[in-house]
Structures are given as structure tokens and as C-alpha cells.
């Protein structure tokens, strides 16, 4: 099935010593698969297994019409990976960006990692992508050399063609079949050096921009699956409440109603239109049993978290003064614009689901288990669909499970949509938290210790996180718990003497999930806010204090850049102030400078200046978009968006009371400056959140003279 010449190639830049393999897949036209070789024996292995049996990361195929298709197990949710992947493939193949299609793979155990999260897509896949595309190019060139009976080394590639010195040209499509039979490339199959790049690194617009602005882009509920009936679910008032009894006789008699189905999570109603389904849902008479958190409200939760902080540890020797900071963060809903949704078709002993899932293999196993097929998950096909935002919410797949159960019960395909209320009140949330930071000061303004204890409800990590972290870190981590993830990700990038950060895990019966930047969205924010407090205590400038203590060259560079570009310390009117903060995470470093105006009483962000070192910037325009978006995310949740829990129920029900920022709150500009310290590919998706939140908080503290310690700041009751 496969030709047996795995290519052993080191990624460009040479900073990562791990290797990856590429191999030719038997196929009528050229197809190259690739994978990281972390656990593989030597590249001289005699035979590679057939595609159906081989674990892989992705493959790149060239079709006879000249289209190049990169298939990868990742979901586009707005992060721009489709564009960045197309750029890498176009670069290595010397093809036009518009000749490349990027396809999202169905759930399949062959995919080594099939999870979109942890800012890992480009970090993890850039190497295999480059290798696969470069290998494909080498075979296309070799096929042309054989056709023309010339030396392969004399040929060049450009614009999707192989070109000979005498002017002859062949399009890749014309070579796609021959190239599939080339046994040994006669030119280098190694990727280009980044210094040769002409596509990668150029600010490039989204490849799906036209589809989006014309309304042609299809999300799950826009798919035309024949016979799929609109379906909604009546849900309990409390989190994870259950159905005690219900009467659907009125609902069943309403116009358009197709059926009513009881679920573990509520009562589903299917109808000819969603409006009719909503109307019939509202006519259901349901008696609900309260959920497991119905004894908990905000005050109880806050008390539980504070109680978990415990007594102060002894400060280091020579400590003359201990400065304490306490911070409270709220539960947050991910609130993607597209609510949870799924189209499902269950017929006999097979099921097919379409949904914007971040972890398709988990969706498959969950749906299979719900249908009683836990031992034969291959009966379930999961098609990941473009998602209207994910942010961590779509690791969980309740909608797919519900849709499959309803489809089987009704005997027809369904399109299930969660209402906005459902999305807000029955989510998995970024947990609330309480933090105590103790800074131990010694003689002469020295900093002898930093002790951060964070009380955070247990975070439910998605199924695939362990495998992904194992791949990223090169050490086996089968089960990722809150404690493990906290220890792996939480660092203090300063020389602060004896530094300790501890997680006090508080189990609460409120569903949780990772949220953009996970623990750093609380721990990292609190740290950077408290660094400013320390500067005030020591009567030092916050930038100068950071510079003197930062342990990372990259962080110093991005901090210097925002200080320069943002004119740190420039004269500002009363009530207007600047704040800075930094973060290094997932091989990237970032600094934010925020200017805020508090003269109206409500903080208004005037401008944001960002400097980021993400290593090799594959698409600077996409990176800028992610960092701008993360800044809005951070501003929203720092200032005004947060959840309240009332007796086990989430109070907020829509964007009317979950006060995400609007256009009128957006700053005049969010500038992004890229600093490139090396050619590693760093993470981008989560990078822009924590230091944006902290820099905004620091600016407000400097403008008002009071350090905010409870978030969101504008919530009186927070």
C-alpha cells in the first residue's frame, strides 16, 4: 500500500530535535502522509504500514485537476488555521494559495491527535505539513524529469508547474498520477529554509473570506441534510437538573410538531420549523428535579474557595514585610456566537453526525456510548464542521449525544439547536477562583519570595488533552488532571527569590471546561496585576521593576517593544493612564500596553499596543486578528462579562446580561507588533488573553489609585 521510504527530516530551524516521517500512500494520484516520529524506530524501517493502519498527522494530495488538498484532523473555528495551512502547503509546493484546499478530517482513530486546542495546531502541524508538501514537490519534479528524460536537478517549480530550462512546463495536475508511482525522489524532499519563504510570513487575508462575506460559509445548521427536522430541548432551571415528570399532550398537538422525546438532559421537541419547536417546547409541562449544585450560590462558592486557601506559609528568612494580594474571578461562559448544534442521522446500526466539534474522536465515543455501541464506535461517523467560535466549549459534545438519541427515537434525521439561554445556562464554564499572592520583601527593597495559592474548582479536561500534551512535551501524560495541567503551565517569569505556586482544587458540582489560556486566565492575570502592586509598594516603575527581574530574554524584548511603540510614561490627562503586563506561554512571548480613561466613571479602553514573539509568524495578519480578538475577550471579561450562580442556576441568559463588549466599547486601535527571535512556531490562539486582562487592570489601578481585585470590575456584586 505504501512505498517504503520514510523520509527522515529535521524541521527547519533545527531547534526541535524530534523528527517526523513522510511516506507515499498508494493512491491513483500523488498522496503523501506525514507524522511526528516521536515513538518511531529508526527512519530506516523496512516497511511503512498501509494508510488504513498507520497513525498519522495529516496528508497532502495532488489531484489530476491540479488542486492540492491538505487533509488534517483540526476544526476551523475562526482561528485562521485553514489559511495558515494553505500558506505552508503553497510555499513548499510553489503553488498558488488559491490552488490549495484544506479539508477537515472525519473522526478516526488513525489520527494521532485529533483535537483543536492548546494553541497547538500550527505548532504541532507546521513541521509535518512542510515535510509532506516538500516531499510531494520532489516527487512531482521527479515525475516530470522521467517524462522529459532530463535530470531532475535541472528542473524548477513555480505557480503549480514543473519547468524545464528549455521552457517546457507541466502542471502538477498532469503529473499527479505519474508522481504517485515515483519510487525515489531525485531532488531533495526537504522543506525550504525560512529565509527562502515568499508566501509564509506575508500578511495574507483569510482564504474563506469571500465565502463568509457572501453568506455562503456553512455552519452546522446551514447544512442541507435531507429530512432533518428542527429540534430544541426544554431544559431544567438548574444546572444538571433532571426531568421528574412531564406532560406533552398540549405540545404534541401544536402546529408543525413532529415528535417529543425525553432525554437525560431534558425534553426534546422536533417540529417543521425552529419557531414551532420553541413554541411547543414552551407548552410542555415539566416538573424538574433540582440539579446537584442547587445548594450553591455565589456567596457559598466564594466562601468555599476562600476556605481552601489555608494558612500562610512561613516567609523566607530575612523577610521584613509580607505584601498580600487577594483576587476573585467569576465563572465565565464561552458564549460562542453559534450555539451548540448538531445534525444527526441514526439509521439501524449506524449513525452520522455533523457538528463543530473540537475533539471529534471524543464526540464519536460519546455518541457511540449513548447509543449503546461503546464497543463498536466505528458505527458512528463524525463530520467536524466549521464552528462559529469554540474557545474551549466545543470539547464537550452534549449536542451530538442529544441529537443522536433524538434521531434514533424519532426514526428520522434531526438538526438540534441549543437556544442562547441553553448555551448560557447549561454550559461548561471557566471556573470561578480565589487567589492569594504573598510577596516577601527583605532589606533594601529586595524580593525574597512569591507564594501564589489558587483555589479553583476542578477543571474538566477534554478526552484528547493527554495525548496532545504527550506529543507536545515529549513525555507521556495519559491522564491530564487539573493538578498536572496547573504544574505544567503555570510559571512565574521573574527572579522573585523563592517562588511557589499551588493549586487548591475545589470539587464543585458545576460543569467546567478549559477557556482561552485555561489557568493562566486567572493565575497569570493575578500575578501580573500583583507585580504592579509590588512596584507601588517598592515605589518603582512597573516597567523598570519587570525589566530588572524578568528571566526571559524574549519577554524583555516584547516589553521593550510596547514601551517604545506605546510611549510608556507619556504625559496623559488626569483620569487617563497606561498599564503593562507580559506573558510567556506555548513557545511564544507577549507584552501588552493598555491606555484607559476612567473620567466618566466607567473605564473606557482608548488603545492597546501589543508586541508578540511567536517565532516564525506564518500569517502575520491572522496572528494580529487572534491577538486583537483575545484583547477584546480579555477586556470583556475583565470589565463587564461574568456569570452569577443563584441556587445552582446561572443567572445570565444572553448577551443582554452577559455584557460582552460592543462596538462602542472597542478601543480606537489595537496595534500588533511582531518580534521574531527564532523560527520555532509558537502558539497564538490563547496567547493574547492574560496579559491584556492584566494590563487593562493595571491601567485602571494607575488611573484610579485603586487596584481592582474582583472581576468583572463593573459588577457591583462581584
Amino acid at each position, binding site marked *: 500500500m505504501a512505498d517504503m521510504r520514510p523520509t527522515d527530516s529535521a524541521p527547519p530551524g533545527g531547534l526541535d530535535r524530534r523528527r517526523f516521517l513522510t511516506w507515499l500512500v498508494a493512491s491513483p494520484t500523488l498522496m503523501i502522509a506525514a507524522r511526528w516520529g516521536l515513538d518511531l524506530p529508526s527512519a530506516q524501517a523496512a516497511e511503512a504500514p498501509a494508510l488504513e493502519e498507520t497513525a498519522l498527522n495529516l496528508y497532502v494530495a495532488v489531484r489530476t485537476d491540479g488542486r492540492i488538498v491538505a487533509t488534517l484532523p483540526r476544526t476551523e*473555528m475562526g482561528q485562521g488555521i485553514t489559511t495558515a495551512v494553505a500558506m505552508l502547503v503553497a510555499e513548499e509546493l510553489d503553488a498558488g494559495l488559491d490552488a490549495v484546499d484544506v479539508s477537515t478530517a472525519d473522526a478516526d482513530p488513525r489520527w494521532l491527535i485529533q483535537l483543536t486546542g492548546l494553541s497547538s495546531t500550527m505548532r504541532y502541524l507546521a513541521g509535518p505539513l512542510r515535510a509532506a508538501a516538500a516531499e510531494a514537490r520532489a516527487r512531482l519534479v521527479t515525475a516530470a524529469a522521467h517524462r522529459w528524460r532530463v535530470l531532475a536537478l535541472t528542473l524548477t517549480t513555480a505557480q503549480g508547474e514543473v519547468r524545464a530550462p528549455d521552457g517546457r512546463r507541466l502542471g502538477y495536475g498532469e503529473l499527479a498520477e505519474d508522481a504517485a508511482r515515483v519510487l525515489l525522489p531525485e531532488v531533495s524532499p526537504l522543506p525550504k529554509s525560512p529565509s527562502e519563504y515568499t508566501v509564509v510570513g506575508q500578511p495574507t487575508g483569510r482564504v474563506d473570506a469571500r465565502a463568509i*462575506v457572501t453568506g455562503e460559509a456553512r455552519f452546522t445548521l446551514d447544512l442541507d441534510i435531507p429530512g432533518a427536522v428542527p429540534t430544541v430541548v426544554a431544559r431544567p432551571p438548574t444546572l444538571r437538573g433532571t426531568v421528574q415528570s412531564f406532560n406533552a399532550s398540549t405540545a404534541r398537538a401544536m402546529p408543525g410538531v413532529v415528535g417529543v422525546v425525553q432525554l437525560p438532559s431534558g425534553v426534546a421537541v422536533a417540529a*417543521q420549523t425552529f419557531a414551532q419547536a420553541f413554541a411547543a417546547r414552551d407548552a410542555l409541562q415539566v416538573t424538574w428535579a433540582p440539579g446537584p449544585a442547587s445548594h450553591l450560590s455565589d456567596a457559598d462558592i466564594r466562601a468555599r474557595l476562600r476556605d481552601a486557601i489555608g494558612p500562610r506559609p512561613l516567609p523566607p528568612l530575612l523577610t521584613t514585610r509580607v505584601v498580600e494580594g487577594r483576587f476573585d474571578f467569576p465563572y465565565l461562559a464561552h458564549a460562542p456566537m453559534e450555539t451548540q448544534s448538531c445534525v444527526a442521522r441514526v439509521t439501524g446500526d449506524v449513525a452520522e453526525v455533523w457538528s463543530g466539534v473540537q475533539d471529534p474522536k471524543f464526540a464519536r465515543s460519546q455518541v457511540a456510548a449513548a447509543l449503546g455501541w461503546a464497543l463498536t464506535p466505528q458505527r458512528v461517523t463524525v463530520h467536524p464542521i466549521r464552528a462559529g467560535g469554540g474557545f474551549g466549549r466545543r470539547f464537550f459534545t452534549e449536542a451530538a449525544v442529544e441529537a443522536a438519541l433524538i434521531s434514533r427515537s424519532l426514526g428520522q434525521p434531526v438538526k438540534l439547536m441549543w437556544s442562547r439561554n441553553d448555551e448560557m445556562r447549561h454550559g461548561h464554564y471557566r471556573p470561578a477562583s480565589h487567589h492569594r499572592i504573598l510577596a516577601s520583601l527583605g532589606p533594601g527593597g529586595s524580593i525574597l519570595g512569591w507564594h501564589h495559592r489558587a483555589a479553583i474548582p476542578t477543571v474538566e479536561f477534554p478526552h484528547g488533552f493527554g495525548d496532545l500534551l504527550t506529543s507536545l512535551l515529549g513525555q507521556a501524560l495519559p491522564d491530564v488532571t487539573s493538578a498536572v495541567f496547573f504544574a505544567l503551565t503555570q510559571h512565574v517569569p521573574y527572579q522573585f527569590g523563592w517562588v511557589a505556586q499551588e493549586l487548591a482544587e475545589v470539587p464543585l458540582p458545576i460543569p467546567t471546561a478549559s477557556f482561552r489560556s485555561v489557568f493562566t486566565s486567572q493565575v497569570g492575570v493575578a500575578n501580573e496585576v500583583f507585580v504592579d502592586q509590588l512596584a507601588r509598594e517598592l515605589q518603582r516603575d512597573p516597567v523598570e521593576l519587570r525589566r530588572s527581574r524578568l528571566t526571559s530574554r524574549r519577554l524583555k524584548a516584547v516589553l521593550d517593544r510596547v514601551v517604545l511603540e506605546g510611549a510608556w510614561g507619556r504625559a496623559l490627562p488626569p483620569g487617563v493612564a497606561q498599564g503593562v503586563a507580559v506573558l510567556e506561554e506555548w513557545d511564544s512571548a507577549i507584552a501588552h500596553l493598555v491606555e484607559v480613561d476612567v473620567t466618566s466613571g466607567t473605564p473606557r479602553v482608548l488603545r492597546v499596543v501589543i508586541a508578540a514573539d511567536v517565532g516564525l509568524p506564518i500569517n502575520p495578519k491572522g496572528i494580529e486578528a487572534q491577538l486583537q480578538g483575545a484583547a477584546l475577550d480579555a477586556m470583556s471579561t475583565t470589565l463587564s462579562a461574568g456569570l452569577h450562580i443563584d441556587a445552582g442556576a446561572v443567572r445570565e441568559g444572553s448577551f443582554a446580561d452577559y455584557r460582552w463588549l460592543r462596538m462602542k466599547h472597542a478601543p480606537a486601535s489595537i496595534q500588533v507588533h511582531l518580534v521574531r527571535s527564532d523560527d520555532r512556531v509558537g502558539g497564538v490562539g490563547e496567547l493574547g488573553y492574560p496579559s491584556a486582562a492584566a494590563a487593562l487592570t493595571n491601567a485602571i489601578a494607575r488611573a484610579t489609585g485603586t487596584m481592582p481585585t474582583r472581576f468583572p470590575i463593573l459588577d457591583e456584586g462581584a
Partner: protein
Amino acid sequence: MPAHQFMLNGQPVSVESPADLPLLWVLRDVLGVTGPKYGCGVGVCGACTSHLDGEAFRPCLHPVGEIAGREVRTIEGLADATGLHPVQQAWIAEDVAQCGFCQPGQIMAAVALLRKNPQPTDADIDAAMSDNVCRCGTYVRIRSAIHRAALLLRSGASLPER
């Protein structure tokens, strides 16, 4: 069931449905016009924003019975045979979209703004666009795109009808 007749993206349509069925679901579930999105169903997010007789409106709030004889335009009807509307062009040029789910509504709101106010200031944009939520946080680029579209409209030889 009564038949409701109205113009949709320049074509007459007739729909048999209860008069109180919100237009959003007539568009999406009956006519298969999926550009306008459901984001809240109660008029607070703007994801379904389209045009009614040239004005921005929320199809999730308007029963189809109110629409009879009137002209509805959705994102699908914005580009014409000559190409993309200048607002769509500006959206591409500024690379506005991230997940894209809110963007049909954002674009339709922007088109309606520019028709009334061909040279909006930032304050005008804030006033007109603050009922459309973008969870991905593309507001700064939306603002730039509206200014760019205003320039395109001023410099363009032909002002689009819509």
C-alpha cells in the same frame, strides 16, 4: 395556512405559514436562506440582521405576517451580477472575519448605516453597530472596513442600489 408574499433578494416569494412565524425561521427553515444566523432569537445579538425596505432589521423579531408586500434583503442578495458590494469588498480587504458567524449581520448593518450616512465618524459607527455582537472581537477591523467601504462608495462610479 395563509400565504405570505414578499420580495426576497429581488425575487417575489410566496410562503404558506402561520402569520406569527418569525421571518428568521421562514428564511432558514422554509426557504433555505441560511445567511441570517440565529444567535439569540430576541434581538440582542444582531446575527440575523438583514434589510426590510432598505433598513436594517432583525428577522428573529418580525412575524412573517408583517412582511407581506415588503422587500427583504439578506446577505445572499447583497452582491449583484457586477460583483461584491463595496462593503463586502472592504470586509475582505480588512480581513475582518474570524469565525464568521456574526459577519452577515455585521455587514448588513454596515450597509444600512452607509446608505443613511455615507461618511460616518467613529461615533456614528459606534451608535449604529453596537447592537451587533462579535464574540471573536473583530470590532476594530469592522470599524476600519466601514471607513474603507465609505471611501469605495464615494470613489465608485456607480452607487449600488442596495
